[in-house]
């Protein structure tokens, strides 16, 4: 397994894709939060509390939570790129126990996803404090609160990268992975929530678990309450665990079905 993980890291670092990772992380973290801080939530449409208040800080940081699809797509390429370029043939020849290949990918991309999450949150912190300093306003949340929110975002990025690996393994095609993630996250789950009774399980659905991690401002919570009345979200740590469980489940399903298919 150590050899396979080493190979996966080399696979990752010997193409140009990984160089886009840090760039995407800074855009989704620092640039997004920095701009939101500079503009100020009080100037949003509709107007919201400014970063002078804790609610304002939560609002600007929560924008980053909307970008989880980026690390998920990055994780999906771990598998889809192998099918696209047919390297999967050599990969399965060198490791005919295919489940070990997926396990190594999941492990490697958990680490890579955490690194991505760290760049996102470090740059988001820089965007928040830097933007506030530039505007001459104080940050309305203590370092402890900011650190907790950033940690939740980093965890979300990590588990979404793993989830991406699982979805990539299930679908084997990057466009299909993008479509499935996008449709599910932005449409299917909202529709599901309208079905009576479904809101009881909503906290355990991927979207609900994500919300437990990243919906930490009043606006998104209010929005969630409108569409998902009376659903109480899980604590953040449980939310992260539920998402990680989805990633492992998707990967396990992939081992059971698509990974056993013929490679022709």
């Amino acid at each position, binding site marked *: 397994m150590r*050899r*396979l993980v*080493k*190979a996966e890291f*080399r*696979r990752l670092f*010997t*193409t*140009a894709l990984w160089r886009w990772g840090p760039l995407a992380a800074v855009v989704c973290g620092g640039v997004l939060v920095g701009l939101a801080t500079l503009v100020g939530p009080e100037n949003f449409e509709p107007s919201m509390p400014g970063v002078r208040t804790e609610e304002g800080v939560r609002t600007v940081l929560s924008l980053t939570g909307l970008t989880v699809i980026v690390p998920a797509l990055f994780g999906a390429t771990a598998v889809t*790129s192998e099918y696209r*370029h*047919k*390297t*999967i*043939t*050599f*990969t*399965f*020849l*060198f*490791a*005919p*126990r295919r489940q070990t290949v997926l396990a190594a990918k999941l492990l490697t991309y958990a680490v890579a996803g955490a690194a991505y999450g760290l760049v996102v949150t470090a740059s988001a912190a820089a965007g928040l404090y830097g933007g506030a300093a530039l505007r001459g306003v104080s940050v309305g949340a203590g370092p402890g609160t900011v650190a907790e929110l950033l940690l939740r975002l980093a965890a979300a990025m990590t588990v979404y990268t793993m989830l991406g690996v699982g979805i990539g393994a299930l679908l084997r095609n990057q466009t299909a992975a993008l479509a499935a993630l996008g449709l599910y996250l932005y449409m299917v789950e909202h529709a599901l929530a309208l079905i009576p009774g479904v809101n009881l399980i909503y906290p355990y659905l991927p979207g609900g678990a994500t919300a437990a991690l990243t919906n930490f401002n009043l606006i998104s919570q209010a929005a969630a309450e409108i569409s998902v009345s009376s659903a109480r979200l899980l604590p953040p740590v449980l939310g992260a665990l539920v998402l990680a469980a989805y990633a492992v489940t998707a990967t396990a399903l992939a081992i059971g079905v698509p990974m056993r298919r*013929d*490679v*022709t």
Partner: protein
Amino acid sequence: MTMSNQVMVRGLTRHFGQVAAVTDLSFTVEPGVVTGFLGPNGAGKTTTLRMLLGLVRPTSGTATIGGRRYADLTHPARTVGAVLDASSFHPGRSARNHLRVYGDMIGCSERRIDEVVDLLGMPEFADRPVRGFSTGMRQRLNLATAMLGDPPVLVLDEPGNGLDPEGIAWLRRFLRAMADEGRTVLVSSHVLSEAEQMVDQVLVIRRGRLMSAGPLAGLTGDGSTLEQAFLRLTGGAA
């Protein structure tokens, strides 16, 4: 050499829906010689080789290397070196890094990477991205990947495809050298003029069934070319 390097196919069958790609195929491939696996397009060569390597599931029958299925080998890539696609590389990765990735999977040293780069005559382009490689360069990288584990068995699907005469001559010398070292060498081809100069033993299949197996001389001994013998066997017009 020992029977541990023998390739054995017994009653191998694979259907794709209504298509019987391979039907009740049985043959044995011995070490120390180059065995040509010949047949027209769609005869079932690729399907057979992929079943041998655990990439395609047989409908029935078995294919073993030294008595074990590929997936059950203790060190599969150190036992069998295989090439199945003309190009299965990430275009942005250099040849050397491609070799390193697969070398990592089986614990090859950097020295082994250098060795296969030299063995396949790739020092000049090993550090360039595969994107710009010619067919010949890709075939060499394919073979280099197969050779990483210094395997006693080579299974190559159409390694001569797209090579110029010089490339074919080089490939012939390479396969000959591999067989002379005692390795088992199984190469498929549908280009007979090319196979004729490359192989010692032939297996001819047509529509998924074995038509003939034996030494090349047995087919061409009557003075006919392999192509004539082949057309006779496969029922084409001579």
